């Protein structure tokens, strides 16, 4: 009797365990079809080499990143017009806060086969999801999909799949560009002519040094945490951070990397940056708005933040072109992307909505919002007079003009570092800035730690 009970009990526990294991390892089998994407079962049409076909009917989920608060009316309008044009299609909009858990949260959604059908992703997230096969191969599923986009943006919107082939899993959406934003009064106090921004990053660092001498701890040039500058500064200086196949770090091979770290260490020591910002996640927004930092964020929409939160500082704010340095053009960074989940149960609806959202008409309409400085990625939108004939001398208008100028030639291929690799490099630079390592040793150690992580990634 007792043995029977024991057997039944053990069998029950094993059954439970296997059920749980099945839940965890099978990936849930979202689509119920006979194809697979990542670890999920999906409709056969979502994968493979055939064009996507099917009725544009059914409900999909559309996820943006921190846009609902400021642009709710615009996106609700886009969704309503899409639903009107496609009876039977329904779009449910959700908005992720876009904090530093975004990539890991999205990856967890993908593993659970619950990725939103249409999703706004950044480059690191797109890299991870493409490698694991969770995104639709857009140029295969709709061969005409590239037509509206500026060729350079479309060309850069590729990511490597598991086999290492570059495929189009993203539609380029909007881009911000990069700018110098600064407080004219503080620059004047430091003897810097705001009308003549430097053309090299080391020239900019020399200006930071002047601000440090003028500020004497009362105000600073910028923030210390190198996380705001790696790898964008390296890109702008045309320093190769990673090898061509992305499997090893090579930035230490360029002597300018050590010079760059030496500059950062010098500036930190001389007080060009608040000491407590070395490993702080705070960007310059707050201190700039208080008039304590001379240079603001390089994101043009930062101007909007200052206008809303600190009108008196906004009156003293000017914008200048980003130093083009050795690259010879702006390293504008990757745009925001729109992707379609390969796990979508209504992929025809999702693809149709993704293309509708990023078409020239909708991109132009959004980018004309008076409170943002963002730029479209479609050829027709960029040819709109709104972007070509900018007038006005206010920081907003000037920012639009400068970005429009730089986007004609900008490099949108920002080096794509994983958060762990970026942190590993940043950590060593921080030690050099504290004087705990020489710049040369820090660069060497940073490369070794980055390589260790890249090696384990395979």
């Amino acid at each position, binding site marked *: 009797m007792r043995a029977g*009970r024991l057997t039944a009990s053990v069998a029950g526990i094993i059954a439970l365990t296997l059920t749980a294991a099945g839940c965890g390892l099978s990936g849930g089998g979202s689509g119920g079809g006979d194809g697979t994407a990542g670890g999920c079962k999906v409709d056969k049409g979502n994968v493979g080499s055939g064009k996507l076909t099917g009725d544009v009917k059914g409900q999909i989920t559309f996820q943006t990143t921190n846009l609902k608060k400021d642009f709710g009316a615009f996106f609700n309008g886009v969704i309503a017009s899409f639903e009107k044009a496609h009876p039977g299609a329904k779009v449910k909009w959700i908005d992720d806060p876009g904090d530093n858990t975004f990539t890991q949260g999205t990856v967890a959604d993908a593993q659970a086969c619950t990725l939103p059908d249409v999703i706004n992703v950044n480059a690191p997230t797109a890299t991870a999801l493409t490698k694991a096969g969770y995104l639709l191969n857009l140029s295969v599923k709709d061969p005409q999909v590239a037509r509206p986009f500026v060729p350079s943006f479309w060309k850069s919107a590729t990511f490597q799949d598991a086999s290492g082939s570059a495929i189009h899993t993203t539609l380029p959406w909007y881009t911000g560009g990069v700018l110098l934003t600064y407080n004219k009064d503080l620059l004047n106090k430091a003897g810097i002519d705001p009308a003549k921004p430097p053309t090299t990053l080391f020239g900019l660092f020399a200006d930071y040094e002047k601000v440090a001498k003028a500020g004497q701890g009362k105000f600073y040039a910028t923030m210390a945490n190198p996380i705001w500058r790696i790898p964008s500064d390296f890109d702008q200086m045309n320093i190769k951070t990673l090898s061509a196949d992305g499997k090893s770090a090579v930035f230490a091979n360029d002597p300018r990397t050590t010079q760059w770290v030496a500059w950062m260490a010098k500036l930190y020591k001389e007080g060009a940056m608040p000491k407590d910002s*070395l490993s702080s996640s705070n960007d310059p927004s707050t201190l700039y708005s208080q008039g304590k930092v001379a240079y603001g964020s390089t994101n043009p929409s930062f101007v909007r933040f200052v206008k809303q939160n600190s009108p008196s500082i906004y009156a003293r704010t000017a914008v200048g072109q980003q130093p083009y340095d050795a690259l010879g053009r702006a390293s504008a960074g990757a745009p925001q992307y729109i992707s379609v989940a390969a796990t979508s149960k209504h992929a025809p609806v999702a693809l149709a909505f993704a293309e509708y959202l990023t078409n020239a008409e909708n991109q132009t309409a959004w980018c004309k919002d008076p409170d943002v400085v963002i730029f479209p990625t479609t050829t027709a939108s960029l040819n709109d007079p709104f972007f070509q004939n900018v007038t006005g001398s206010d920081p907003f208008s000037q920012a639009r003009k400068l970005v429009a100028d730089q986007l004609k030639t900008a490099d949108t291929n920002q080096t794509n570092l994983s958060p762990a690799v970026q942190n590993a490099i940043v950590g060593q630079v921080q030690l050099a800035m504290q004087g705990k390592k020489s710049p040369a040793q820090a660069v060497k150690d940073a490369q070794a730690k980055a390589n260790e992580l890249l090696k384990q990634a395979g």
Partner: protein
Amino acid sequence: MATETAEPVTVPGTGRAASVPGTAPSRIRRIGRAVLPGPVPGANGAALYRRWWLPWLWTAPAIVCAVVFGVFPFLNTVILSFTDAKPLGGAASFVGLDNYTRMLGDSDFWLATRNSILYAVVVVPLMVLLPLMLAVLVEKNLPGIGFFRSAFYTPVLASSVVVGLSWQWLLADDGLVNTWLQKAHLIRSAVPFLSDSWLILFSAMGLTLWKGLGWYMIFYLAALGNVPKELHEAAQMDGAGAVRRFWHITVPGVRQAMMLVGTLTGIGCLRVFTEIFMLGSSTGGPGGADRTLPFYIRDVGLDPISGNAGYGSAVSVALFVLTLGLTLLAQRLTKEDEA
């Protein structure tokens, strides 16, 4: 010899016989007879539970939860630790003890282990004693004491992120703490609470303590209720002061609660992440010098692009062994104390 016969007890006003526990069918037995097949053996309601599967039925929800959210993830982690699995899945190869061998020679792993252990060594004794002292202070029912109890408990309710931001403002170079110290002429230049790796670590410990004091104070308030007041009165009559009574009556009286607080705090300390992230940002302090084991697991195991879930799992197993060791130590100390 007369034989006593039990008279049936009637329910007043109804004329119906009432059931007497142990002698007459109880309501539960009648329900049992109605809904369960077969005869109900035995003379009382407990016999209902002789069906072997009933205890399993009652405990099934808890067992399912434990298996799905505890046992299975744990076993999966152990299995993964012998592979080179990636966070996003895909094919994983068996690598034997490679991950554990790598761990032993990994200086960053040992740095994270040191930080986690140091965290526990510093925080546990303070977290065991300070809330007890706080509980003793607010135990008495004085007018307005509720305000102080609420005030001490408030940090427990605040989110870790909000508390972390508040502490950033407090500890910044131009923050409240440095400003006060400078105004009091105790320091000339700002104390680098947020840029020195040791100070970031100790500031994070302070944050953990501040946030946990109120929670454990409630534990102790409950435990203090079981300490006989007569002992305090007798000791007071014999001339024992407040400090002596605290050490010789209060502390022994709540020793079990102290062991529990120590164990829970120790486990919590080994899992610290948010405090370090809030004060040391995504790098875990300058050069990653303040990373704890969970922080390190995130960096090496969970990064969706460069992470190695196999190695991260091996570090997780090491963290589990450390936590288990601490728990067993606490159990042993408790048993010795009881003996």
